[in-house]
Protein backbone atom coordinates (compact mmCIF):
# COMPACT_ATOMS: atom_id res chain seq x y z
CA UNK A 1 0.00 0.00 0.00
CA UNK A 2 1.42 3.38 -0.97
CA UNK A 3 -0.82 6.01 0.59
CA UNK A 4 -3.98 6.68 2.56
CA UNK A 5 -6.03 9.77 1.84
CA UNK A 6 -8.60 11.40 4.11
CA UNK A 7 -10.65 14.54 3.52
CA UNK A 8 -12.41 16.59 6.19
CA UNK A 9 -14.77 19.53 5.91
CA UNK A 10 -14.07 22.01 8.69
CA UNK A 11 -16.93 24.34 9.60
CA UNK A 12 -16.06 27.96 10.29
CA UNK A 13 -16.38 29.57 13.72
CA UNK A 14 -17.46 26.31 15.36
CA UNK A 15 -15.15 26.14 18.35
CA UNK A 16 -16.75 23.06 19.85
CA UNK A 17 -15.66 21.07 16.79
CA UNK A 18 -12.38 22.84 16.09
CA UNK A 19 -9.57 20.30 16.24
CA UNK A 20 -11.62 17.32 15.08
CA UNK A 21 -9.87 16.96 11.74
CA UNK A 22 -6.37 17.19 13.21
CA UNK A 23 -7.51 14.87 16.01
CA UNK A 24 -8.55 12.26 13.43
CA UNK A 25 -5.27 12.53 11.61
CA UNK A 26 -3.37 12.08 14.88
CA UNK A 27 -5.39 9.00 15.73
CA UNK A 28 -4.70 7.42 12.34
CA UNK A 29 -0.97 8.01 12.72
CA UNK A 30 -0.99 6.40 16.15
CA UNK A 31 -2.81 3.37 14.80
CA UNK A 32 -0.32 3.10 11.98
CA UNK A 33 2.54 3.20 14.46
CA UNK A 34 4.43 6.35 13.45
CA UNK A 35 6.94 7.66 15.96
CA UNK A 36 5.74 9.83 18.85
CA UNK A 37 8.12 12.59 17.78
CA UNK A 38 6.67 12.74 14.28
CA UNK A 39 3.12 12.59 15.57
CA UNK A 40 3.83 15.53 17.86
CA UNK A 41 4.98 17.61 14.91
CA UNK A 42 1.92 16.62 12.88
CA UNK A 43 -0.32 17.39 15.87
CA UNK A 44 0.98 20.92 16.30
CA UNK A 45 1.02 21.86 12.62
CA UNK A 46 -2.36 20.40 11.70
CA UNK A 47 -4.09 21.72 14.80
CA UNK A 48 -2.83 25.26 14.25
CA UNK A 49 -3.69 25.22 10.55
CA UNK A 50 -7.16 23.86 11.25
CA UNK A 51 -7.79 26.52 13.89
CA UNK A 52 -6.70 29.21 11.45
CA UNK A 53 -9.34 28.03 8.99
CA UNK A 54 -11.93 28.07 11.74
CA UNK A 55 -11.18 31.54 13.11
CA UNK A 56 -9.86 33.47 10.12
CA UNK A 57 -11.41 31.89 7.02
CA UNK A 58 -14.93 30.64 7.79
CA UNK A 59 -13.84 27.01 7.50
CA UNK A 60 -12.46 24.94 4.65
CA UNK A 61 -11.26 21.55 3.50
CA UNK A 62 -8.43 19.46 4.95
CA UNK A 63 -6.86 16.72 2.85
CA UNK A 64 -4.31 14.43 4.42
CA UNK A 65 -2.18 12.00 2.44
CA UNK A 66 -0.31 9.49 4.54
CA UNK A 67 2.48 7.36 3.13
CA UNK A 68 5.10 5.33 4.97
CA UNK A 69 7.61 8.15 4.46
CA UNK A 70 5.55 11.25 5.15
CA UNK A 71 2.29 12.93 5.96
CA UNK A 72 1.24 15.70 3.58
CA UNK A 73 -1.71 17.87 4.56
CA UNK A 74 -3.40 20.56 2.48
CA UNK A 75 -5.66 23.18 4.09
CA UNK A 76 -7.78 24.96 1.54
CA UNK A 77 -10.19 27.77 2.32
CA UNK A 78 -12.14 30.43 0.46
CA UNK A 79 -11.79 33.02 3.18
CA UNK A 80 -10.47 36.58 3.02
CA UNK A 81 -6.88 35.63 2.21
CA UNK A 82 -3.82 37.13 3.92
CA UNK A 83 -2.94 40.66 2.71
CA UNK A 84 0.59 40.79 4.14
CA UNK A 85 2.03 37.32 4.41
CA UNK A 86 5.37 38.45 5.76
CA UNK A 87 3.65 40.14 8.66
CA UNK A 88 1.37 37.15 9.23
CA UNK A 89 4.41 34.88 9.49
CA UNK A 90 5.90 36.96 12.29
CA UNK A 91 5.76 35.50 15.79
CA UNK A 92 3.08 37.22 17.84
CA UNK A 93 1.29 38.89 14.92
CA UNK A 94 -2.45 38.32 14.97
CA UNK A 95 -5.58 39.96 13.62
CA UNK A 96 -7.81 37.86 15.86
CA UNK A 97 -10.45 40.05 17.54
CA UNK A 98 -10.77 40.25 21.30
CA UNK A 99 -13.67 37.80 21.58
CA UNK A 100 -11.53 35.14 19.88
CA UNK A 101 -8.56 35.92 22.11
CA UNK A 102 -10.83 35.50 25.09
CA UNK A 103 -11.34 31.91 23.94
CA UNK A 104 -7.59 31.35 24.15
CA UNK A 105 -6.78 31.67 20.44
CA UNK A 106 -4.94 34.40 18.56
CA UNK A 107 -1.50 34.32 20.18
CA UNK A 108 0.01 34.86 16.76
CA UNK A 109 2.19 31.75 17.03
CA UNK A 110 0.24 29.51 14.65
CA UNK A 111 1.92 30.17 11.34
CA UNK A 112 5.45 30.51 12.77
CA UNK A 113 5.05 27.18 14.58
CA UNK A 114 3.58 25.45 11.54
CA UNK A 115 6.66 26.49 9.61
CA UNK A 116 8.99 25.54 12.44
CA UNK A 117 7.65 22.02 12.93
CA UNK A 118 7.03 21.03 9.31
CA UNK A 119 9.63 19.79 6.83
CA UNK A 120 7.94 21.33 3.80
CA UNK A 121 5.84 24.48 4.18
CA UNK A 122 4.04 26.22 1.36
CA UNK A 123 1.36 28.88 1.50
CA UNK A 124 -0.59 30.46 -1.37
CA UNK A 125 -2.97 33.23 -0.58
CA UNK A 126 -4.96 35.84 -2.49
CA UNK A 127 -7.04 38.57 -0.91
CA UNK A 128 -10.74 37.94 -1.42
CA UNK A 129 -10.10 34.43 -2.78
CA UNK A 130 -8.67 32.35 -0.02
CA UNK A 131 -5.65 30.55 1.30
CA UNK A 132 -4.09 27.17 0.61
CA UNK A 133 -1.52 25.94 3.08
CA UNK A 134 0.42 22.76 2.37
CA UNK A 135 2.67 21.08 4.90
CA UNK A 136 4.66 17.87 4.80
CA UNK A 137 6.14 16.12 7.77
CA UNK A 138 8.60 13.32 7.07
CA UNK A 139 8.66 10.20 9.19
CA UNK A 140 12.39 10.72 9.55
CA UNK A 141 12.31 14.50 9.56
CA UNK A 142 13.37 17.25 11.91
CA UNK A 143 14.70 16.62 15.38
CA UNK A 144 12.10 15.86 18.03
CA UNK A 145 10.60 18.83 19.83
Amino acid at each position, binding site marked *: *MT*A*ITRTYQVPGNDFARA*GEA*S*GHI*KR*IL*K*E*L*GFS*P*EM*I*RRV*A*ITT*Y*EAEINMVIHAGGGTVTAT*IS*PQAVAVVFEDHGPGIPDLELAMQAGWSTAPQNIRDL*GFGAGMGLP*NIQKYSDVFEIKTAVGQGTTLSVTIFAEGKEP*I
Partner: protein
Amino acid sequence: MNAGYESIYLDETQCVGCTTCMQRCPTQAIRVRDGKAVIIRDRCVVCGECIHVCPHHAMKAKVDSLDEVLGQHKYTIALPAPSLYGQFPGIHTRAPILEGLCRIGFDQVFEVAEAAEAMSAVIHRELRSGSIPHPIITTACPVILRVVRIRFPSLLPHLLNYRSPMEIAARWSKRLAAEKTGLALEDIGCVFISPCPAKCASAKAPLGTLKAALTGIVSIAEVAPRLSAVIGDLDDHEREAHSGPMGIGWAMSGGQSTAVMEPNHLAASGMENIIRILEALENGKLSNVDLVELNACYPGCVGGALTVENPFIAKARILRLMRHIGPVLPSGGCPTDDMRWEKKPEASHALRLDPDLSRAMEMMEEIRELTGTLRGMDCGACGSPTCRAFAEDVVSGRTELKNCVFLSRAPEGDAPSGKKG
Protein backbone atom coordinates in the same frame (compact mmCIF):
# COMPACT_ATOMS: atom_id res chain seq x y z
CA MET B 1 3.01 -2.87 26.57
CA ASN B 2 3.37 -5.10 29.55
CA ALA B 3 0.18 -4.42 31.45
CA GLY B 4 1.64 -6.55 34.20
CA TYR B 5 -0.44 -7.29 37.21
CA GLU B 6 -4.12 -7.58 36.38
CA SER B 7 -5.61 -5.57 39.18
CA ILE B 8 -9.10 -5.46 37.71
CA TYR B 9 -10.81 -8.75 37.03
CA LEU B 10 -14.22 -10.03 36.09
CA ASP B 11 -16.33 -12.15 38.38
CA GLU B 12 -17.86 -14.27 35.64
CA THR B 13 -20.66 -15.52 37.84
CA GLN B 14 -21.98 -11.97 38.23
CA CYS B 15 -21.44 -10.71 34.67
CA VAL B 16 -24.57 -10.82 32.50
CA GLY B 17 -22.88 -9.36 29.42
CA CYS B 18 -24.94 -6.17 29.55
CA THR B 19 -22.21 -4.08 27.80
CA THR B 20 -22.40 -1.21 30.32
CA CYS B 21 -18.68 -1.37 31.14
CA MET B 22 -17.77 -1.75 27.48
CA GLN B 23 -19.73 1.34 26.50
CA ARG B 24 -18.31 3.41 29.34
CA CYS B 25 -14.65 2.38 29.20
CA PRO B 26 -12.77 5.58 28.34
CA THR B 27 -10.06 3.74 26.43
CA GLN B 28 -12.31 1.20 24.66
CA ALA B 29 -10.44 -1.58 26.38
CA ILE B 30 -13.43 -3.85 26.99
CA ARG B 31 -15.25 -6.25 24.67
CA VAL B 32 -18.08 -8.67 25.33
CA ARG B 33 -17.32 -12.17 24.08
CA ASP B 34 -19.63 -15.14 24.57
CA GLY B 35 -21.78 -13.04 26.85
CA LYS B 36 -18.98 -11.99 29.22
CA ALA B 37 -16.86 -8.85 29.46
CA VAL B 38 -13.22 -9.24 28.46
CA ILE B 39 -10.54 -6.66 29.25
CA ILE B 40 -7.93 -5.97 26.57
CA ARG B 41 -5.06 -5.69 29.03
CA ASP B 42 -2.65 -3.65 26.99
CA ARG B 43 -5.25 -0.92 26.49
CA CYS B 44 -6.51 -0.89 30.07
CA VAL B 45 -5.33 2.11 32.07
CA VAL B 46 -6.85 0.75 35.32
CA CYS B 47 -8.94 3.86 35.91
CA GLY B 48 -11.64 1.83 37.65
CA GLU B 49 -14.55 3.24 35.65
CA CYS B 50 -15.82 -0.29 34.94
CA ILE B 51 -15.88 -1.05 38.68
CA HIS B 52 -17.83 2.15 39.26
CA VAL B 53 -20.43 1.58 36.54
CA CYS B 54 -21.07 -2.17 36.51
CA PRO B 55 -24.67 -2.55 37.68
CA HIS B 56 -24.01 -6.15 38.73
CA HIS B 57 -20.75 -5.49 40.59
CA ALA B 58 -18.99 -8.03 38.40
CA MET B 59 -15.88 -5.92 37.76
CA LYS B 60 -13.63 -6.17 40.78
CA ALA B 61 -10.30 -4.97 42.01
CA LYS B 62 -7.75 -7.60 42.86
CA VAL B 63 -6.54 -6.49 46.27
CA ASP B 64 -5.20 -8.32 49.27
CA SER B 65 -7.51 -9.00 52.18
CA LEU B 66 -6.81 -7.51 55.58
CA ASP B 67 -6.56 -10.89 57.26
CA GLU B 68 -4.07 -12.02 54.67
CA VAL B 69 -1.70 -9.06 55.01
CA LEU B 70 -1.88 -8.90 58.78
CA GLY B 71 -0.53 -12.41 59.19
CA GLN B 72 2.40 -12.23 56.79
CA HIS B 73 5.12 -10.32 58.66
CA LYS B 74 6.46 -10.00 62.18
CA TYR B 75 5.71 -6.29 62.12
CA THR B 76 3.17 -4.65 59.81
CA ILE B 77 2.86 -0.96 59.01
CA ALA B 78 -0.37 0.57 57.73
CA LEU B 79 0.09 3.21 55.04
CA PRO B 80 -3.25 5.01 54.77
CA ALA B 81 -3.93 7.04 51.60
CA PRO B 82 -4.98 10.56 52.57
CA SER B 83 -8.39 9.89 51.00
CA LEU B 84 -9.10 7.47 53.88
CA TYR B 85 -9.50 10.47 56.20
CA GLY B 86 -12.66 11.59 54.42
CA GLN B 87 -14.58 8.36 54.83
CA PHE B 88 -15.94 8.79 58.37
CA PRO B 89 -18.66 11.07 59.66
CA GLY B 90 -18.20 12.94 62.93
CA ILE B 91 -14.41 12.72 62.96
CA HIS B 92 -12.57 16.00 63.48
CA THR B 93 -8.97 14.83 63.65
CA ARG B 94 -7.04 11.93 62.18
CA ALA B 95 -6.36 10.47 65.60
CA PRO B 96 -9.24 7.99 65.83
CA ILE B 97 -8.48 6.75 62.32
CA LEU B 98 -4.77 6.32 62.92
CA GLU B 99 -5.26 4.78 66.36
CA GLY B 100 -8.02 2.66 64.94
CA LEU B 101 -5.66 1.12 62.39
CA CYS B 102 -3.54 -0.14 65.27
CA ARG B 103 -6.64 -1.51 67.02
CA ILE B 104 -7.60 -3.56 63.97
CA GLY B 105 -4.23 -5.27 63.92
CA PHE B 106 -1.48 -3.09 62.46
CA ASP B 107 1.63 -2.56 64.57
CA GLN B 108 2.22 0.96 63.40
CA VAL B 109 0.79 3.62 61.10
CA PHE B 110 2.75 5.77 58.68
CA GLU B 111 0.81 8.41 56.81
CA VAL B 112 1.26 8.44 53.05
CA ALA B 113 0.44 12.12 53.42
CA GLU B 114 3.73 12.56 55.25
CA ALA B 115 5.62 11.22 52.24
CA ALA B 116 3.53 13.44 49.97
CA GLU B 117 4.46 16.40 52.12
CA ALA B 118 8.17 15.60 52.00
CA MET B 119 7.94 15.08 48.24
CA SER B 120 6.19 18.41 47.78
CA ALA B 121 9.30 20.29 48.80
CA VAL B 122 11.48 18.22 46.47
CA ILE B 123 9.08 18.66 43.56
CA HIS B 124 8.93 22.39 44.25
CA ARG B 125 12.68 22.54 43.56
CA GLU B 126 12.36 20.19 40.58
CA LEU B 127 9.91 22.60 38.94
CA ARG B 128 12.58 25.28 39.01
CA SER B 129 15.50 23.09 37.97
CA GLY B 130 14.56 22.83 34.30
CA SER B 131 15.46 19.15 33.99
CA ILE B 132 11.96 18.23 32.80
CA PRO B 133 10.40 20.22 29.94
CA HIS B 134 7.40 22.33 31.00
CA PRO B 135 4.50 21.91 31.31
CA ILE B 136 5.38 19.13 33.73
CA ILE B 137 2.65 16.49 34.07
CA THR B 138 2.12 14.90 37.48
CA THR B 139 2.17 11.11 37.86
CA ALA B 140 1.07 10.48 41.44
CA CYS B 141 -2.07 9.03 39.84
CA PRO B 142 -0.69 5.91 38.11
CA VAL B 143 -3.41 6.06 35.46
CA ILE B 144 -1.66 9.07 33.93
CA LEU B 145 1.51 7.16 33.09
CA ARG B 146 -0.58 4.47 31.43
CA VAL B 147 -2.68 6.87 29.40
CA VAL B 148 0.40 8.74 28.23
CA ARG B 149 2.26 5.55 27.28
CA ILE B 150 -0.68 4.26 25.29
CA ARG B 151 -2.26 7.37 23.79
CA PHE B 152 0.16 10.27 24.13
CA PRO B 153 3.68 8.83 24.00
CA SER B 154 5.06 12.10 22.64
CA LEU B 155 4.37 13.58 26.09
CA LEU B 156 6.50 11.02 27.98
CA PRO B 157 9.38 13.51 28.43
CA HIS B 158 6.99 15.87 30.27
CA LEU B 159 6.12 13.37 32.99
CA LEU B 160 7.23 14.05 36.52
CA ASN B 161 9.57 11.07 36.91
CA TYR B 162 9.05 10.55 40.63
CA ARG B 163 7.81 7.56 42.54
CA SER B 164 4.38 7.84 44.06
CA PRO B 165 4.00 8.93 47.71
CA MET B 166 2.84 5.43 48.67
CA GLU B 167 6.16 4.00 47.55
CA ILE B 168 8.22 6.67 49.24
CA ALA B 169 6.17 6.10 52.38
CA ALA B 170 6.87 2.36 52.20
CA ARG B 171 10.62 2.80 51.83
CA TRP B 172 10.78 5.47 54.48
CA SER B 173 8.65 3.76 57.10
CA LYS B 174 10.33 0.41 56.58
CA ARG B 175 13.72 1.94 57.23
CA LEU B 176 12.50 3.73 60.37
CA ALA B 177 10.76 0.62 61.66
CA ALA B 178 13.86 -1.50 61.13
CA GLU B 179 15.88 0.94 63.23
CA LYS B 180 13.24 1.06 65.93
CA THR B 181 12.52 -2.65 66.21
CA GLY B 182 15.83 -4.15 65.17
CA LEU B 183 13.97 -6.41 62.74
CA ALA B 184 15.27 -7.27 59.28
CA LEU B 185 13.61 -5.45 56.36
CA GLU B 186 12.07 -8.72 55.14
CA ASP B 187 10.25 -9.08 58.43
CA ILE B 188 8.49 -5.74 58.04
CA GLY B 189 5.29 -5.52 56.04
CA CYS B 190 4.11 -2.25 54.45
CA VAL B 191 0.44 -2.27 53.52
CA PHE B 192 -1.10 0.53 51.52
CA ILE B 193 -4.76 1.33 52.14
CA SER B 194 -5.86 2.20 48.66
CA PRO B 195 -8.64 4.28 47.12
CA CYS B 196 -8.29 2.62 43.71
CA PRO B 197 -7.23 -0.36 41.61
CA ALA B 198 -4.65 1.78 39.78
CA LYS B 199 -2.49 2.08 42.87
CA CYS B 200 -2.67 -1.69 43.22
CA ALA B 201 -1.54 -2.21 39.66
CA SER B 202 1.32 0.21 40.02
CA ALA B 203 2.45 -1.35 43.27
CA LYS B 204 2.33 -4.91 42.03
CA ALA B 205 3.82 -4.18 38.62
CA PRO B 206 5.45 -0.79 38.86
CA LEU B 207 5.92 0.78 35.46
CA GLY B 208 8.34 3.48 36.44
CA THR B 209 10.10 1.63 39.21
CA LEU B 210 11.95 -1.65 39.28
CA LYS B 211 11.07 -2.93 42.72
CA ALA B 212 8.38 -1.86 45.08
CA ALA B 213 8.84 -1.68 48.84
CA LEU B 214 5.17 -2.34 49.50
CA THR B 215 4.22 -5.82 50.60
CA GLY B 216 0.46 -5.54 50.34
CA ILE B 217 -2.51 -3.46 49.28
CA VAL B 218 -5.93 -3.44 50.83
CA SER B 219 -8.92 -1.38 49.77
CA ILE B 220 -10.44 1.50 51.66
CA ALA B 221 -13.74 -0.28 51.04
CA GLU B 222 -12.60 -3.21 53.19
CA VAL B 223 -10.85 -1.17 55.87
CA ALA B 224 -13.48 1.55 56.38
CA PRO B 225 -16.20 -0.60 57.96
CA ARG B 226 -13.66 -2.37 60.21
CA LEU B 227 -12.40 1.03 61.35
CA SER B 228 -15.88 2.43 61.88
CA ALA B 229 -16.51 -0.32 64.37
CA VAL B 230 -13.60 0.73 66.61
CA ILE B 231 -13.15 4.47 66.23
CA GLY B 232 -16.18 5.56 68.22
CA ASP B 233 -14.45 5.31 71.60
CA LEU B 234 -11.06 6.71 70.58
CA ASP B 235 -9.90 10.13 71.67
CA ASP B 236 -8.61 13.02 69.61
CA HIS B 237 -4.98 12.96 70.66
CA GLU B 238 -2.86 12.66 67.51
CA ARG B 239 -0.19 10.21 68.56
CA GLU B 240 0.54 8.74 65.14
CA ALA B 241 -0.04 11.88 63.06
CA HIS B 242 3.05 13.33 61.44
CA SER B 243 1.78 14.98 58.28
CA GLY B 244 0.84 18.61 57.99
CA PRO B 245 -2.12 19.72 55.92
CA MET B 246 -0.27 19.98 52.58
CA GLY B 247 0.39 16.28 52.16
CA ILE B 248 -3.20 15.45 53.03
CA GLY B 249 -4.37 17.81 50.31
CA TRP B 250 -2.98 15.41 47.67
CA ALA B 251 -6.25 13.49 48.09
CA MET B 252 -8.03 16.15 46.05
CA SER B 253 -7.44 17.50 42.58
CA GLY B 254 -5.40 20.69 42.91
CA GLY B 255 -3.95 19.65 46.25
CA GLN B 256 -0.62 18.60 44.85
CA SER B 257 -0.17 21.87 42.94
CA THR B 258 -0.92 23.79 46.12
CA ALA B 259 1.48 21.64 48.13
CA VAL B 260 4.36 22.11 45.70
CA MET B 261 3.58 25.84 45.67
CA GLU B 262 3.17 26.21 41.93
CA PRO B 263 0.69 29.00 41.28
CA ASN B 264 0.96 28.61 37.50
CA HIS B 265 -0.75 25.24 37.40
CA LEU B 266 -3.73 23.56 35.85
CA ALA B 267 -5.48 20.77 37.74
CA ALA B 268 -7.90 18.48 35.91
CA SER B 269 -9.65 15.33 37.02
CA GLY B 270 -11.95 12.73 35.51
CA MET B 271 -10.92 10.57 32.54
CA GLU B 272 -12.71 12.61 29.90
CA ASN B 273 -11.17 15.84 31.13
CA ILE B 274 -7.65 14.53 31.42
CA ILE B 275 -7.75 13.08 27.91
CA ARG B 276 -8.83 16.48 26.59
CA ILE B 277 -6.01 18.19 28.43
CA LEU B 278 -3.49 15.67 27.10
CA GLU B 279 -4.80 16.23 23.55
CA ALA B 280 -4.30 19.97 24.02
CA LEU B 281 -0.78 19.45 25.36
CA GLU B 282 0.04 17.22 22.42
CA ASN B 283 -1.17 19.98 20.10
CA GLY B 284 1.28 22.37 21.69
CA LYS B 285 -1.35 24.26 23.66
CA LEU B 286 -1.01 25.20 27.34
CA SER B 287 2.68 25.89 26.81
CA ASN B 288 2.43 28.81 29.25
CA VAL B 289 1.46 26.50 32.14
CA ASP B 290 4.23 25.11 34.35
CA LEU B 291 2.50 22.25 36.11
CA VAL B 292 -0.38 20.09 34.90
CA GLU B 293 -1.88 18.05 37.73
CA LEU B 294 -3.99 15.16 36.48
CA ASN B 295 -6.15 12.66 38.35
CA ALA B 296 -8.19 9.93 36.72
CA CYS B 297 -10.86 10.23 39.38
CA TYR B 298 -13.14 13.18 39.82
CA PRO B 299 -12.47 15.27 41.91
CA GLY B 300 -9.22 13.51 42.80
CA CYS B 301 -8.49 10.36 44.82
CA VAL B 302 -11.51 10.96 47.07
CA GLY B 303 -13.46 9.76 44.00
CA GLY B 304 -11.48 6.49 43.70
CA ALA B 305 -13.40 3.33 42.81
CA LEU B 306 -12.48 1.63 46.11
CA THR B 307 -13.66 4.42 48.40
CA VAL B 308 -17.02 4.26 50.13
CA GLU B 309 -18.03 7.85 50.86
CA ASN B 310 -19.44 10.32 48.34
CA PRO B 311 -16.35 12.08 46.92
CA PHE B 312 -17.62 15.58 47.66
CA ILE B 313 -18.55 14.77 51.22
CA ALA B 314 -15.13 13.18 51.70
CA LYS B 315 -13.48 16.24 50.19
CA ALA B 316 -15.35 18.61 52.50
CA ARG B 317 -14.33 16.55 55.52
CA ILE B 318 -10.69 16.48 54.51
CA LEU B 319 -10.65 20.23 53.93
CA ARG B 320 -12.09 20.75 57.40
CA LEU B 321 -9.57 18.38 58.91
CA MET B 322 -6.73 20.21 57.14
CA ARG B 323 -7.83 23.51 58.65
CA HIS B 324 -7.70 22.09 62.14
CA ILE B 325 -4.32 20.42 62.07
CA GLY B 326 -2.10 21.59 64.88
CA PRO B 327 1.69 21.61 64.87
CA VAL B 328 3.12 18.23 63.87
CA LEU B 329 6.58 16.80 64.12
CA PRO B 330 7.67 15.16 60.84
CA SER B 331 9.44 11.82 61.23
CA GLY B 332 12.62 13.05 59.54
CA GLY B 333 14.96 11.09 57.33
CA CYS B 334 12.79 10.93 54.24
CA PRO B 335 14.81 9.02 51.61
CA THR B 336 15.13 11.88 49.12
CA ASP B 337 18.01 10.18 47.32
CA ASP B 338 15.93 7.60 45.50
CA MET B 339 12.70 9.42 44.79
CA ARG B 340 12.99 9.16 41.03
CA TRP B 341 11.94 6.36 38.72
CA GLU B 342 14.70 3.89 38.11
CA LYS B 343 13.89 3.43 34.45
CA LYS B 344 12.36 5.49 31.72
CA PRO B 345 8.90 4.36 30.69
CA GLU B 346 8.59 3.51 27.02
CA ALA B 347 5.85 4.17 24.51
CA SER B 348 3.30 1.41 24.27
CA HIS B 349 2.20 0.05 20.92
CA ALA B 350 -1.28 -0.95 22.06
CA LEU B 351 -3.03 1.20 19.46
CA ARG B 352 -0.88 0.07 16.54
CA LEU B 353 -2.78 -2.08 14.04
CA ASP B 354 0.29 -4.02 12.92
CA PRO B 355 4.05 -3.76 13.43
CA ASP B 356 4.46 -3.67 9.66
CA LEU B 357 3.51 -0.20 8.43
CA SER B 358 2.26 -1.18 4.99
CA ARG B 359 0.16 -3.97 6.49
CA ALA B 360 -1.19 -1.47 9.02
CA MET B 361 -2.11 0.86 6.17
CA GLU B 362 -3.96 -1.90 4.37
CA MET B 363 -5.84 -2.73 7.52
CA MET B 364 -6.71 0.92 8.02
CA GLU B 365 -8.34 1.01 4.60
CA GLU B 366 -10.16 -2.28 5.20
CA ILE B 367 -11.50 -0.94 8.47
CA ARG B 368 -12.70 2.21 6.77
CA GLU B 369 -14.43 0.27 4.04
CA LEU B 370 -16.09 -2.08 6.47
CA THR B 371 -17.15 0.76 8.78
CA GLY B 372 -18.95 2.32 5.82
CA THR B 373 -21.13 -0.77 5.44
CA LEU B 374 -22.19 -0.83 9.10
CA ARG B 375 -25.22 0.96 10.53
CA GLY B 376 -23.25 3.40 12.64
CA MET B 377 -25.60 2.94 15.60
CA ASP B 378 -22.84 1.84 17.97
CA CYS B 379 -25.41 -0.51 19.52
CA GLY B 380 -22.79 -2.75 21.11
CA ALA B 381 -24.71 -5.98 20.45
CA CYS B 382 -21.71 -7.33 18.53
CA GLY B 383 -19.59 -7.05 21.66
CA SER B 384 -17.51 -4.09 20.46
CA PRO B 385 -18.08 -0.57 21.79
CA THR B 386 -18.64 1.18 18.44
CA CYS B 387 -19.15 0.18 14.82
CA ARG B 388 -15.65 1.51 14.08
CA ALA B 389 -14.19 -0.60 16.90
CA PHE B 390 -16.12 -3.61 15.58
CA ALA B 391 -14.64 -3.09 12.12
CA GLU B 392 -11.18 -2.89 13.66
CA ASP B 393 -11.84 -6.06 15.64
CA VAL B 394 -12.99 -7.90 12.51
CA VAL B 395 -10.00 -6.78 10.44
CA SER B 396 -7.62 -7.63 13.30
CA GLY B 397 -9.18 -11.07 13.61
CA ARG B 398 -10.54 -10.48 17.12
CA THR B 399 -14.15 -11.08 16.15
CA GLU B 400 -16.26 -12.25 13.24
CA LEU B 401 -18.47 -10.29 10.90
CA LYS B 402 -21.42 -12.50 11.73
CA ASN B 403 -21.53 -11.00 15.21
CA CYS B 404 -23.09 -7.83 13.81
CA VAL B 405 -26.81 -8.24 14.42
CA PHE B 406 -27.71 -6.19 11.36
CA LEU B 407 -25.33 -7.80 8.87
CA SER B 408 -26.34 -11.27 10.00
CA ARG B 409 -29.94 -10.63 9.03
CA ALA B 410 -31.35 -11.36 5.59
CA PRO B 411 -31.01 -8.42 3.16
CA GLU B 412 -34.70 -7.55 3.68
CA GLY B 413 -33.84 -7.12 7.31
CA ASP B 414 -36.68 -9.24 8.67
CA ALA B 415 -35.43 -12.79 9.13
CA PRO B 416 -32.26 -13.88 10.94
CA SER B 417 -29.88 -15.57 8.50
CA GLY B 418 -29.57 -18.63 10.66
CA LYS B 419 -33.26 -19.42 10.14
CA LYS B 420 -34.01 -22.52 8.14
CA GLY B 421 -35.61 -22.22 4.70
